[in-house]
Every structure is written in C-alpha cells, then in structure tokens.
C-alpha cells in the first residue's frame, strides 16, 4: 500500500496558551496516510500539548483540525489501573460491550492480543503495579495498538526501552505504517527519530521551526534548530578539564524489569541520596519548591537554600514559593537533583535520571552526576540508556534477571554489553 497523498491529519493555525506561555503558536502542518512523522523539540516546546489537542483531550484556543475518528495515544505518563492485571487492563481497553468475563479467558485473549502486537510481555496475570516502568510502557503501547487506530501518537515511547526493544518498536511502527496507520512519534532523541521517521517536524517554544524530510539534515543541524543555536557542548567541556582520578561512577545497565527497581530499593538507606525512577512521586506536587527541599534539610533557612539552588541549578521557576507540581518535568527533576546533591551525599543512587528530559536538562543532569562523583560521592547510575552509561560511567555492570554481571571497564563493556543484556553471554 504505502503512503498516499490523502492527508490523514491536518492542522491549521492551532494556538493554545497557558497563562502567559504559548504552548502552541499558530501551528500548521499535515500528515499523510501511512506516514511516520517525528515530532521533536525540547521539553516544554509544546509537542505533547499539540498532540493532546489532536487526540481531543484538550481544546485549542483557535485553529482548525481535521483528524481521523480512531486515534490511539500512548502517553509519557501511564494510564493503567494499577490493581488490575495486564489482562484486565487490556480488557478495559477493548471496545466490546457487556459480556461475562473469566480471568482465564481474559488472559488467553490478552496473550493473543500481545502476540499480534509483536511486543514481548510475558505472564499476563501480573498486576500493573508490579510491572517495571518499561513493561508498563509496553502495555500502554499494546493497548493503543489493539484498537487498530488510524492515527497513532507515541509520546516519548523509547525513553524506557532498551536498544533491542527500540528496534522492535521501530519494526512495529514500520509495519503499522505500511498497513496505512499514520504515526506521530514524539521524541527528543534525534538519532532514533531519524532512524524511523520519514519526516521531521521540529518545535520550539510552541512554534514549528523546521518541517522537512529526514535525509536532508544531519542530526547536528536538527539539534541546533531544536535548541535554537545554543550549544554548551558538555562533552567538549569535560575533555577540556583534566579529570582527577575519582571514585567510580558505576552504571548498572539492563533491559527494564530485570530487577533494577528492587536493586535500588535494597541499596537505598534512609540517608542515601536518591533520584527515583518513579517521576510522578519524586516530589510532593502540592508543596512548594522550598518545602520540598526542606523535607530533606529542615525548614531552617529553607527559603534561602531554595533560592540558592534555583539559581545554581538553573531551575526555571518564579521563586521558592512555586508549587512543585506546576514545574515542567525537567525542572522538577532539577529540584530533586538539587535537593539530593546539596547534602553532599556519600552515596547517590540515580534511577533513569534523564528519562523524558530534553537535551539541555539531560546534559545538566549528566554534568551534576559527574561532578558529584568527582567531588567524592559514590554514584550508582541505574539506566536503560546505554549512551548515557557509556558517556558517564567509570565502570559498567549489566543486570539481567536480577543478577549482576562482573564489573567492566567501558572498553570491555562495549563489546559485551549487548549480549549480557540479552542474556546470551
């Protein structure tokens, strides 16, 4: 079949404001049937808002949308019933009317559904709350695909997946596209978007700043349009500063759901600095930045401390009195980081610390983790992002089915990691 000229989705002059910020500013573009479009941009560029408007979850202030009736959207934040099993969650998503259910039948149907989706998710009787973040992401994806949508929107789907799982996802995306499904793939990891998308739409501050077919541009050029020419060059910066022999920053890499969560929980003592994988529960949304920081350090001088940390961690906030829940994801993560590192911890456990963050924020988090290690802290980085592990770590270990591989140097890891992660070594 392949792509046709018929537009599956077309947006004209979409504008949406939240208070003073324009999340979408006169956005116009259209997507043809069977096309895979990468929608890229930094955190807060307006990608998710725009797609939520398309999915009908949010109304635009002005503009016109022509969208197909069946739209599947996989959110970055999951919508699963945590007390339900995988099978029950899938049954909820199916469009069937009233019928009698038995857990046995639901599980059989779920297994069929999962097989057809081409995604690997074993043991459908497990509760959603027992799944790792990566597995939850897979379940969400399976849910979205089963309704056979004409338009599939994926919001940062790869952020919790391993390279092998990503490749599987991309195969699935290509297959869906070949059968006529239009896919909008939101991401800020440029290389992977270029790998699968036929076309890129780049957003910055609510505007579309580039809309082109992928082969025409290099990753560097796209990165530049994304951030608007600002490039602090973390890697260059690091090389210019001779590294003192530091205690190891150890990275634990692995496919999500191989015991990373349990490992982090076991190692975490009351005084360990901890950056949780579970972003939704990293901060108390109802409390201010200052209060969240005071949870660790006490109320005395909390306001001044918060002001200082907002400044030094470049947190975009109106002040220490801003509610943490109203900050963007990247800035929330910076608050967590600031709070945990300000205590000059001996041990820092960071679980997927840059998942879902944009280039700038990721770079910042990396810088801070490295600095903490250089300043004498032991840093344990638990991540499924291999690039991150190889960039930062002094040593790497692989976790597979709850077991840790021996410690490897980066050079050694380079040849062995993939096999260890897949459990073939």
């Amino acid at each position, binding site marked *: 079949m392949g792509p046709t000229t018929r537009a599956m989705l077309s947006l004209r002059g979409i504008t949406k404001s939240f208070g003073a910020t324009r999340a979408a500013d006169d956005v116009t573009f259209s997507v043809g049937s069977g096309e895979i479009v990468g929608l890229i941009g930094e955190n807060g560029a307006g990608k998710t808002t725009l797609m939520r408007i398309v999915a009908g979850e949010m109304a635009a202030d002005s503009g016109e949308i022509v969208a197909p009736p069946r739209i599947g959207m996989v959110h970055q934040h999951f919508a699963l019933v945590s007390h339900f099993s995988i099978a029950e969650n899938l049954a909820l998503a199916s469009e069937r009317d009233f019928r009698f259910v038995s857990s046995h039948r639901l599980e059989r149907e779920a297994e069929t559904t999962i097989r057809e989706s081409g995604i690997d998710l074993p043991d459908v009787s497990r509760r959603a709350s027992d799944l790792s973040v990566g597995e939850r992401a897979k379940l969400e994806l399976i849910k979205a695909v089963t309704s056979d949508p004409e338009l599939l929107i994926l919001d940062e789907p790869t952020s919790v997946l391993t390279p092998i799982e990503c490749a599987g996802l991309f195969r699935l995306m290509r297959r869906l596209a070949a059968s006529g499904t239009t896919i909008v793939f939101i991401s800020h990891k440029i290389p992977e978007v270029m790998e699968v998308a036929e076309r890129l739409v780049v957003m910055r501050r609510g505007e579309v700043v580039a809309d082109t077919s992928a082969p025409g541009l290099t990753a560097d050029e796209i990165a530049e349009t994304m951030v608007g020419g600002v490039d602090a060059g973390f890697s260059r910066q690091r090389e210019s500063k001779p590294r003192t022999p530091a205690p190891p920053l150890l990275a634990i890499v692995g496919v999500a759901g191989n015991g990373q969560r349990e490992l982090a929980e076991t190692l975490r003592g009351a005084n360990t600095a901890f950056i*949780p994988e579970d972003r939704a529960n*990293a901060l108390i*949304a*109802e409390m201010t930045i200052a*209060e969240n920081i*005071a949870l*660790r350090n006490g109320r005395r001088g909390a306001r001044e401390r918060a002001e200082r940390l907002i400044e030094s961690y470049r947190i975009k906030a109106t002040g220490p009195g801003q509610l943490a829940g109203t900050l963007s994801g990247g800035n929330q993560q910076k608050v967590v980081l600031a709070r945990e590192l300000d205590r000059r911890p001996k041990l820092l456990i960071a679980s997927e610390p840059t998942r879902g963050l944009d280039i700038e924020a990721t770079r910042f988090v990396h810088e801070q983790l490295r600095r903490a290690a250089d300043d004498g802290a032991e840093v344990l980085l638990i991540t499924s992002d291999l690039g991150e592990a190889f960039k930062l770590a002094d040593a790497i270990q692989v976790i597979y089915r709850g077991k840790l591989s021996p410690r490897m140097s980066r050079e050694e890891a380079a040849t062995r990691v993939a096999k260890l992660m897949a459990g073939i070594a």
Partner: protein
Amino acid sequence: MKRALVAAAASAASLALLAFVAATFGHSPLLVLRTLFEGSIGSSFAIEGTLTKSVPLLLTGLSVVIAFRAGAWNIGAEGQFIAGAIAALLASRFGNVAAILAAAIAGAAWASIASLMRLWRNAPEVLTTILLNFIAIHLLGWCVNGPLREASGQYPQSDPASSSLPAIGSVYVGVPLSIVIAVAMWWLLYRTTEGLRLRATGFNAGAARYAGINTGWQLFRAMAISGAVAGIGGAFELLGVTHRLFERFAAGYGYSGIAVALLGQLHPLANIASALFFAALTTGAGELQRSAGISSAIATLGQAMAILVVIAVSWRRRNA
C-alpha cells in the same frame, strides 16, 4: 482566603436551608433563625453555653485534622474521646494535670491500635477506628454499670471525678486551653520541619519516602497525637462539664468532629471557627426545642447541610 469564603458561604447556605426546611414544616423561618441566634449568641449565658459546647467539637475536629494531614482518616475520635474520659476519671484523684495526661495517653493508645494494625497488616484505619469506637462505647457502658458505677448504685453513672477544671471568669478553662491546642497544632504542622514531613506523608507517601522520610513513623505519630487530642477532649468534658461518666457521655462528638474538620477545611485554625459555628448551632437548636418545640435534631440537619455544601463546592473546583 478563597477556602475561608467557601466555608463561610457553606455555613450561611446551611442556615438558609434550615430556614427553608422550617418554612416547609409550617414554622416561620425568621423566627427559627432568630431563636437560633438568640439561643446561641444572644446573651452571655447563651455564649457561655456555645463556648463550652465548642470544646469537645474543636478537639475531636483537631484530632481528625492531624490524622488527615498524615494521610489517615481517623473516624475513631469518638472512641478515643471515651478512652480519654475513662482514664481521666481514674487518674483524677491525682489532680487535673495527671487526669489530662492520662487521658492523652489513653486516647493515643486507643488510636495506636488502629495505626499499628495499618502499619503491620495494612488494615484500613477507617474500618478499625470505627470498630474501636464500638468497643469503647461498650467498654464505657460496662464501666458505668459495673466497676465504675456510683457508690450509691442508683444510676448507671460514675461518681463525680475527684478533681474538676477551674473557670476563668464564667467560662471553664477548657475553652482557652482547646484554642491553645489548636494554635499549637497549627504551629506543629506549618512551622516545623516535622510538620512539613507529616504533611508530605499525607500528600504523597511515595514521594515522602523518596525524600528519606520514615512515613510509617510519621503516620504512627500523627495518629497518636490525634488520639491524644481526642482523649484530652474527653478529659475536658468530664472534668469541666459533666463531672460524671455515663453511657451517652460522648454523644457523638467524635463523629461531629469529622464535620467540624471538613467545614474547617482540615486546617487547625479554621477549625476554631467551624467548631464555634457547630456549637452555636447546637445550643441554638436547644433553645429552639425549649421555646418553639422544634426538635433539636435540626442542629444535626444544619451540620449535614453545611458539610454537603462544602463537599459540593470543593468537588466542583476539583473538576473545573
């Protein structure tokens, strides 16, 4: 500020609804409202009655507030109130201070049964605290019919407590003390690091745990304070008002405390106002019964209406 307006509007709306109900039953709404006002704040005698009535309401309300702030619904203020009163009676021979201390400990212990069951077996405290209420009520019944029955054996009630709370002017000391407790609780919750951690536990226990807070300990301690405050309420009522224990001693104060806490937006200081409002409603309704023959159950109706309005308004806001 907005929330204070909501509460005030809810109180006004409940009065308006009361007047409307009175009208549908053939009473003059204006007369009903006037009697309510005069019976509660119309004379110094009425004001004293209202203030006295506000003490158990405020303390059981505060008990609900602090548990809620740590993420637990303490429906057991009634039982903790009773446990406190029994302990106060027993300890009253050593003086007021000993009696109040004993009441605080007994209330805290009663509440801790529920919090320990929550922490060890994950038993929902809503259920366990209610069930503990029944046990406390029957324990009280057994006490006043058995070991604590008055020496003369005439009525199922205890002998008067050996000590009683003094009055300041014409108001007994429980009134200012309960306000002091409200302010102290506000200070604890909003001006100390431990209060911050307690509230963090209530907002999001997961995030609190990531911040290094021992949420189980926070919950346990908040429930203990909650029970202690309700227990002190029982002691004040015994030592300052009834002086004797009898079966209907608690008279539903523990449950009214939930209403007080809700109308007071689960804030300790706002609770002072809401306790006074409900106390006024109760004393006013007493006057209504005496002078106009309208059942004092109308006070309960007023409470219920105020709470429904508060809930309806906050529900709307959450969905806006």
